[in-house]
């Protein structure tokens, strides 16, 4: 079925505008690695300071690009797989709110009024419009789910007994997680930060705001990941030339992530004061339970790839690995998903270190952390977004991909870059190198008393990797721009655009994973149980502070006039 024309336009805007912003996000990523190696020893380059660039890199890449992609991909999947019309008014409202919010926040960042990083920890205080922008963006991203639910319920009524298409299950899971996770951060922004930055309130409970932020901050990473999981479960087996090994595994994984994505944000606060070790320990255990759907996913995807490879003539215990379509320009999307999986293997393993309670002491807030999450959000998620965007943009505009070979190379270049980058930062992190720090001025400066020669090799590996990652992004934009500029593909314009969709190999029928309600109810209860005590402790201790601080001065901000 062809998408509604207006919806097609909205989806294209939701993919292309963030990609344009991403040019700045990627530039500031590469620049940071150069600053951190000490090759650039400056507070700013071209009028933009290191910390403004760092804020832009985080906000654009981790919030704007990821959320817009989830919304655009969600609309594509829902309307195609349910073969239904969705509310154009809702989609327009969502686009307008999200775009205006993103632009408002970006302008404040580039004016230097919001160098507070994407975690915007108070009492560092940004311009009120930065917080307004974030709030608009979050509220805008809520709208799609509200308009999809009636469409989904209608489909269920008209298709009694049929399984909901896997992609729809995944997208609804994605936005259910997002809905649960963003309520606390919206409270933080609207109740704590905005009135405080406007001078209406003077004290803020900083521990409370950190806790509300991380209630959101970890499910945020599952929200990033889930659209890629949708691609892995619904598209990868098809692209590999086979079937999805287990239908149950996909449905179970999506439901398990609804249950387990929220009640574990405290593992980002293992090093915080003001929270008891018991509360931290409970959420630490819940954190590790995510390994169960993750390992089941690893098994199912490997089994699906093996099935595909054997269909293509693969033999032997390991020999079948050679039969997958690694370098086929016609099938350029496969390496985006496959390289993402390879990277994710290391992202998952290293994540166990941060998540493992007291082991976090060794790596907390060091360069280890960005090394880890560039193998998760910077690996499968980012490659999924690049590949998925190119697929949908060219598909909806009926354009050819120019060229398939170059598009196919991008994920390999990216993978080499991220491995070098992350290896360097892992090494540095274990030696105490802090994250989010303009190292070149002090720790990477032989003239400074703070010079740390043992961080030289890690920081320089970070730079080499970062530049290779930058090269991959450059190649991607060459492909994207050439494809957009190309004449429409005559053959493609005959058939409606459709996402590749895999068939199940084992189509198990397990009723427990076919209904959202019990999983959502259990998730809410589990969140309440995991967060009741720490929130109560923090509220009772009343850890408040005086007005905020601007990043450029140790004198408190006077908001009284």
């Amino acid at each position, binding site marked *: 079925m062809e998408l509604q024309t207006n919806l097609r336009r909205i989806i294209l805007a939701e993919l292309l505008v963030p990609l344009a912003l991403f040019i700045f996000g990627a530039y500031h990523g590469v620049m940071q690695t150069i600053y951190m190696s000490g090759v650039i020893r400056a507070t700013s380059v071209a009028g933009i300071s290191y910390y403004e660039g760092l804020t832009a890199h985080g906000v654009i890449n981790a919030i704007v690009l990821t959320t817009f992609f989830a919304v655009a991909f969600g609309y594509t999947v829902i309307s195609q797989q349910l073969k239904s019309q969705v509310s154009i008014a809702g989609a327009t409202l969502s686009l307008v709110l999200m775009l205006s919010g993103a632009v408002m926040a970006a302008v404040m960042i580039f004016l230097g009024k919001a160098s507070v990083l994407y975690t915007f920890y108070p009492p560092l205080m940004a311009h009120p419009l930065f917080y307004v922008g974030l709030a608009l963006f979050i509220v805008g991203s809520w709208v799609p789910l509200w308009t999809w639910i009636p469409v989904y319920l209608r489909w269920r009524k008209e298709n009694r007994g049929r399984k909901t298409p896997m992609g729809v299950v995944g997208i609804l899971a994605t936005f259910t997680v997002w809905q649960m996770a963003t309520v606390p951060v919206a409270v933080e922004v609207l109740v704590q930060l905005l009135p405080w930055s406007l001078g209406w309130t003077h004290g803020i409970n900083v521990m409370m705001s950190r806790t509300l932020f991380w209630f959101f901050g970890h499910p945020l990473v599952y929200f990033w990941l889930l659209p890629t999981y949708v691609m892995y479960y619904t598209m990868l087996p098809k692209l590999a030339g086979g079937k999805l090994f287990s239908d149950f595994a996909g449905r179970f994984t999506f439901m398990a992530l609804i249950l387990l994505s929220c009640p574990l944000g405290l593992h980002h606060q293992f090093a915080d004061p003001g929270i008891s070790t018991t509360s931290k320990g409970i959420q630490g255990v819940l954190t590790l339970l995510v390994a169960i759907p993750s390992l089941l996913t690893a098994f199912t995807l490997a089994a699906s790839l093996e099935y595909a490879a054997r269909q293509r003539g693969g033999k032997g215990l390991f020999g079948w690995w050679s039969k997958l379509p690694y370098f086929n320009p016609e099938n350029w999307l496969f390496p985006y998903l496959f390289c993402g999986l390879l990277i994710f293997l290391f992202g998952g393993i290293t994540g166990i270190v941060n998540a493992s309670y007291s082991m976090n002491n060794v790596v907390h807030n060091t360069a280890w952390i960005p090394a880890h999450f560039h193998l998760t959000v910077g690996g499968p998620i980012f490659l999924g977004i690049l590949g998925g965007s190119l697929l949908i943009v060219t598909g909806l505009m009926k354009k050819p991909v120019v060229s398939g070979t170059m598009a196919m190379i991008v994920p390999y270049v990216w993978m080499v870059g991220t491995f070098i980058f992350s290896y360097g930062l892992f090494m540095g992190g274990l030696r105490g190198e802090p994250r989010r720090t303009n190292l070149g001025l002090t720790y990477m400066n032989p003239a400074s008393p703070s010079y740390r020669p043992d961080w030289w090799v890690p920081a320089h590996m970070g730079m080499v990797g970062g530049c290779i990652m930058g090269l991959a992004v450059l190649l991607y934009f060459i492909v994207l721009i050439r494809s957009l500029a190309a004449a429409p593909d005559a053959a493609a314009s005959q058939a409606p655009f459709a996402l590749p969709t895999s068939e199940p190999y084992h189509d198990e029928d397990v009723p427990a994973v076919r209904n959202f309600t019990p999983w959502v109810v259990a998730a809410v209860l589990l969140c309440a149980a995991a967060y009741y005590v720490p929130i109560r402790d923090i509220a009772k*201790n009343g850890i408040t502070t005086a007005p905020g601080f601007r990043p450029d001065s140790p004198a408190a901000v006077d908001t009284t006039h």
Partner: protein
Amino acid sequence: MSINVFEKRAFLVAVASVAVSLALIAYATWGMGINVPTCIPLGSKPFEQASVTKHEGKNYEVHYVARMWAFEPSVLRVPTGSTLDMYAVTKDVTHGFLIAGTNVNLMLVPGAVANSRVHFDKPGIYTIVCHEYCGRNHQNMNARIEVSDQIADYSVEGLPADEGMKLLDAKGCLACHSVDGSVGVGPTFKGAWGAPVTLADGSTRTLDAALFLQKVRHPDTIAVQGYPPVMPDLPLTDDEISQIEAYLEGLQK
């Protein structure tokens, strides 16, 4: 159709590996005694002054104060084999407190006290890194702990109290007031802070910030019993007075 047998096994392997991981974490926590920071009950307000206190043997209690963009004390020297109980607070924004090469890794959040313990059995220079973005000069924010075989006791730099001692000397206070308990023209500072003092009019007051300020700003309005009223007017700034107070507070211990 039922679930494939290999998939069931994969599921069991996943559950088993989580169980093994949890068991290892439990062992690290209780068996090896490596824990994460806990919640210190905030009956009183967080301390405001950095200080070092020597306890029995090579045990020290160190109170660190972080601010944009420095730690107090900036340098701490201790003998090899020392055990340090670290308490740290922030005066402004959230800071990080990582001692590179150890398991000490804390967040310093406004209003709360962070705590950890560290034992140094290898000599060397350990960097304390602020690892949370805290504004423009975040990359400048560090301190160090020097662990050495060559010293028998601790020494420290960059405490406001050190500045207090320098001021007492520079402003001439030490001409009349000793810091070691010996008798001079005026009463000794040793153990005086927070202790009762009998004034010339027979009343008893406690030496606190209010009394101290009055004596410095208007020396002729108060005299201590048994001492001549010869205290001169001293041009001290508020900052200097608070640095001296910090030092005097330390002298009572």
